[in-house]
């Protein structure tokens, strides 16, 4: 930057002079000389320098002014509101009917209305008055009525205690029968508002009303006492009569004049007790003791009789003031009615008892009749069966030509049918009579079915049916005899009704056990017939010729007794499936093979070894014995008998041995061998021969001869005597 203040061609003196003038001008400027002359530039300079600051300062100032104005306006508004509120408040409390006062949190009077001082003389009410001084002034006011045991200091102390609570309302009595209700409430800021309400009118009105109420209540009680049909007398704490009603005299049959206010209970009681008798466990002393008793007395109730008829219920109860009330109720009618009722009841019970006895007798007779019927059926069946077996035995023994044997065969078949009917009847009879005891055990179902298969295979083969029994390894739990009857009947029906096709017996495993199913390709059973077929002697029309209609009846009864559900599925023209459900045997029952003989042996108490080479005779006899509940071990000959006994290792209780056995040995020979092995077992030799020599021979062998046809009675006598 060049400093070109002076001209180069100036003399030094000129330059010096100019620089001095320049310096002077600058110094004057710096020292602000000539201010007056330079005002305009100074203005400019100030403006330039201060422009920014001034502008900001101005803005701040304006903002501050705005705020000031706004707050002034708010303040003015607030002041107006405050004034208005104060005026409103003062006006409001001035118009109150109640006296009103407000104390601040420091317990100094803020304001009160003129009514606040009304009625209490001598209160120095002015703002700033401490609450304690206010209370003291009230306590000393001549207007205040103090109770006898309370002086002004006491009153003031109690009043200040109340003041300590946030909300309290109480009444103050003033002279001239005037009352004030004072309610005191704490304000949220901790100040106190006191309202005084003049309640003299209310108190007076209430007092009058209460007086009226008491009178009215007394009249109402009196009217009530006279209205009820009980006798009531009231005694006070000293047991003196305080009240009674008219019914008293009627019920006790004493003149009303006897009742006198204030008369002592004892006096009254002594006068009245003649002519009264106490019923139940109560006597006069009970009553006297009760009256004399100190508190508390439990209510006392008893009955008395006046004269010969009237019965009174007496109820004595203590009242809160130790007095007591005794009421008398005429219960003569009730007692009479209840006596009549008791009499009627007794008569009725007697009749019921008599009738019960009669009915029991009738029932016994009925049971007897039923039992005798059952016994009759059983006996009749036995009796029918015996000649039948005999007839069969005879027929079995018929000899002759082929024609004769053919006739005999037909006769035997006819007898078989008769026998089947009788057996069925016998079964039903037993099932009905409840006398058939069940013998539940575990056994192999497969073996039972196998034997049934053997039994029915010939009949099925004769009709050209394919008959099949599926093998099973299940062991079941049931009564084997009845189960066998059930299955026998089902299979027999199947074979009987299936004209062609097949009969299939199989076992199905189910969740709860097994189900034995018998399938046939018979005509099927219509829906409507499915119940009827289980009835006795019911046969479906046009079907089968040789059934008697008892099979399913037996099945149903036996299954019901055993608890084995019977099932039936059928389609007309296709076939039927009968089934019986069985429980499985518990697993640990052992694997001992159980043949039919052994079953029998386990079932009966008496075990008979029957050795008979004639099959018909053998099965007839076995059936007979089994029907008697006797276990039967059957054998065709001596060797078989010995082998079976050897196998089962059980000694029979009795022996029935046919004299004429196959082979060389006679029945007596066998008898001796058996006895040699098993001891002296009672025995009978049976034979169709009636030669005395034979009889003697048998008798000598210790086995009397029973001749054919066998006498069932003799047989039974022998078997059951052997059992003992």
């Amino acid at each position, binding site marked *: 930057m060049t400093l070109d203040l002076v001209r180069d061609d100036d003399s030094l003196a000129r330059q010096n002079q*100019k620089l001095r003038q320049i310096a002077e*001008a600058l110094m004057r400027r710096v020292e602000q000389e000539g201010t007056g*002359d330079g*005002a305009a530039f100074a203005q*400019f300079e100030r*403006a330039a320098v201060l422009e920014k600051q001034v502008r900001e300062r101005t803005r701040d100032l*304006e903002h501050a002014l705005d705020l000031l104005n706004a707050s002034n306006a708010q303040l003015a508004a607030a002041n107006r509101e405050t004034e208005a509120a104060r005026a409103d408040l003062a006006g409001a409390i001035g118009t109150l009917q109640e006296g009103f006062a407000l104390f601040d949190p420091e317990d100094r009077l803020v304001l009160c209305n003129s009514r606040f001082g009304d009625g209490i003389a001598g209160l120095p009410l002015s703002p700033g008055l401490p609450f304690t001084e206010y209370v003291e002034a009230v306590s000393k006011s001549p207007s205040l009525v103090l109770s006898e045991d309370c002086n002004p200091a006491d009153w003031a102390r109690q009043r200040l205690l109340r003041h300590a609570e946030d909300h309290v309302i109480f009444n103050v009595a003033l002279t001239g029968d005037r009352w004030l209700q004072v309610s005191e409430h704490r304000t949220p800021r901790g100040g106190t508002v006191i309202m005084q309400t003049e309640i003299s009118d209310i108190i007076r009105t209430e007092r009058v009303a209460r007086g009226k109420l008491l009178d009215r209540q007394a009249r109402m009680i009196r009217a009530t006492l006279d209205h009820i049909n009980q006798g009531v007398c009231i005694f006070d704490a000293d047991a003196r009569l305080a009240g009674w009603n008219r019914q008293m005299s009627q019920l006790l049959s004493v003149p009303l004049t006897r009742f006198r206010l204030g008369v002592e209970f004892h006096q009254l009681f002594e006068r009245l007790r003649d002519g009264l008798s106490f019923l139940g466990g109560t006597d006069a002393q009970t009553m006297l003791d009760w009256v004399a008793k100190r508190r508390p007395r439990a209510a006392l109730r008893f009955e008395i009789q006046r004269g010969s008829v009237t019965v009174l219920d007496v109820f004595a109860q203590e009242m809160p003031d130790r007095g007591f009330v005794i009421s008398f109720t005429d219960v003569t009618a009730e007692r009479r009615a209840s006596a009549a009722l008791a009499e009627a009841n007794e008569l009725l019970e007697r009749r019921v008892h008599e009738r019960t006895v009669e009915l029991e007798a009738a029932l016994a007779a009925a049971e007897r009749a039923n039992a005798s019927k059952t016994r009759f059926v059983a006996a009749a069946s036995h009796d029918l069966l015996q000649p039948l077996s005999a007839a069969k035995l005879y027929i079995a023994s018929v000899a002759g030509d082929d024609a004769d044997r053919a006739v005999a065969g037909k006769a035997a078949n006819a007898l078989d049918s008769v026998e089947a009917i009788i057996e069925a009847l016998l079964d039903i009879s037993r099932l009905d009579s409840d006398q058939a005891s069940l013998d539940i055990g575990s056994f192999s179902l497969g073996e039972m079915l196998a034997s049934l298969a053997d039994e029915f295979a010939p009949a099925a083969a004769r009709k050209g049916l394919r008959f099949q029994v599926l093998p099973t390894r299940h062991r079941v739990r049931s009564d084997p005899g009845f189960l066998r009857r059930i299955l026998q009947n089902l299979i027999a029906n199947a074979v009987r009704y299936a004209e062609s096709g097949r009969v299939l017996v199989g076992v199905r495993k189910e969740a709860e056990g097994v189900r034995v199913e018998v399938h046939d390709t018979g005509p099927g059973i219509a829906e409507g017939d499915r119940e009827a077929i289980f009835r006795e002697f019911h046969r479906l029309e046009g079907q089968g010729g040789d059934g008697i209609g008892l099979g399913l009846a037996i099945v149903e009864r036996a299954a019901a007794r055993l608890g084995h559900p019977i099932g039936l599925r059928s389609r007309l023209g296709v076939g039927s499936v009968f089934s019986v459900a069985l429980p499985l045997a518990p697993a640990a029952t052992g694997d001992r093979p159980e043949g039919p003989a052994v079953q029998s042996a386990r079932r009966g108490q008496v075990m008979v070894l029957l050795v008979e080479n004639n099959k018909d005779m053998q099965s007839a006899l076995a059936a007979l014995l089994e029907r008697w509940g006797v276990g039967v071990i059957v054998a065709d000959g001596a060797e078989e008998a010995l082998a079976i006994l050897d196998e089962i290792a059980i000694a029979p209780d009795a022996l029935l041995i046919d004299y004429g056995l196959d082979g060389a040995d006679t029945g007596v020979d066998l008898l001796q061998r058996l006895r040699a092995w098993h001891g002296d077992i009672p025995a009978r030799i049976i034979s169709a021969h009636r030669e005395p020599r034979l009889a003697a021979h048998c008798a000598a062998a210790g086995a009397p001869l029973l001749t054919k046809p066998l006498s069932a009675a003799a047989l039974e006598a022998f078997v059951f005597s052997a059992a003992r």
Partner: protein
Amino acid sequence: MKDHVRSLPWREGTDQVLTAAKVPADHPLPMEAIKAALGPGPFALVLLFASPAADFAALTAASGVAYPSAEIIACTTAGEIFDGYSDGTIVAIGLPAEDFACATQLIENVDNIDSEELIARIVHARASLGLGHGGFDHEFGMLLVDGLSLAEDRVAATLAAAMGEVPLVGGSAGDGTVFEQTWVGRNGVARRMAGVVALIATRCPVQVFSLDNMVPTDRRMVVTSADPDRRIVRTINAEPAAAEYARLVGKDPEQLNPLIFAAHPVVVRVWGKHHVRSIQRVTEAGELVFFSAIDEGLVLTVASASEIDMATHLDGELSALGAPAAILGFDCLLRRLDAAERQQIRAVSECLARHRVVGFSTYGEQIGPIHVNQTMTGVAVYPPTGP
């Protein structure tokens, strides 16, 4: 004659916020022509910038009749700005009452103003605008003041103090290049030694600005003798002022003229900022008469135009204002002279037209409290943002 009456085609634009027109200064019935061009209003404010060739008193009187309900302020010019630089015309600008509210004050005897009285009047006038209502959230002030009053500094400072943070722009009335008499007018009244101020509230956002293209050089001088009241510098560096100025700017003292003054203004440095002190003329005594306040002991620094040419500089500055709907501009006479000297007048004029500047050439400009020279001040008016 009708061909000479022009109005800007702004009504066609969607961002139209004001309307303007110019008529020849020698138009026999200028106000009628102006009214025909601006339309009947209603206007909040009508501005009239009249060439010294016009009959200012008659124009002022007629304006009060033409727009009896509008505020009207007017002044004489050293040239008009309407579609670029213009001469011998009357430029009229109408601010619609729909978007503007306005209050005006006449300031008489500006050489002897009562600051407190003026401030009080301005405050009341502002209050009468009902600020804060109707969405008229934007505010600015506009001053037109006698350009030969030697009092612009004081007037501007006083007004700025009264207006607080409200921005103030202004222009000094001119008298062509004659420097004999300038006029201002308000609502039918014409005055010399006076100022008029318009306080304007509007729903249009506004932005005031001040620009110059001067940079100080290293040539400085000291005012050793002066007559501050008359803005006359008698000696510089203890030599006759004109001769010493001429020596420092390298010119013949005998040939000093406004073009040289415009090309070589001097600036004063106040708190790190330069402010142009323009020279008006040379007296017969070889003294320098300034357009703005001076004092003895001032250090004057010779300034020169920046490297960037004037039109480019102006275009940059005006473009920086964004997209205003219009610009009211007060452009120093010396800038126009300088542009002419530098053969930039055409470019600068086109730049003004392009930026839709309307206004006039001044004897001085006011921005806030400061009166300066050789600048362009003004206010950019933007389309309303809200309803």
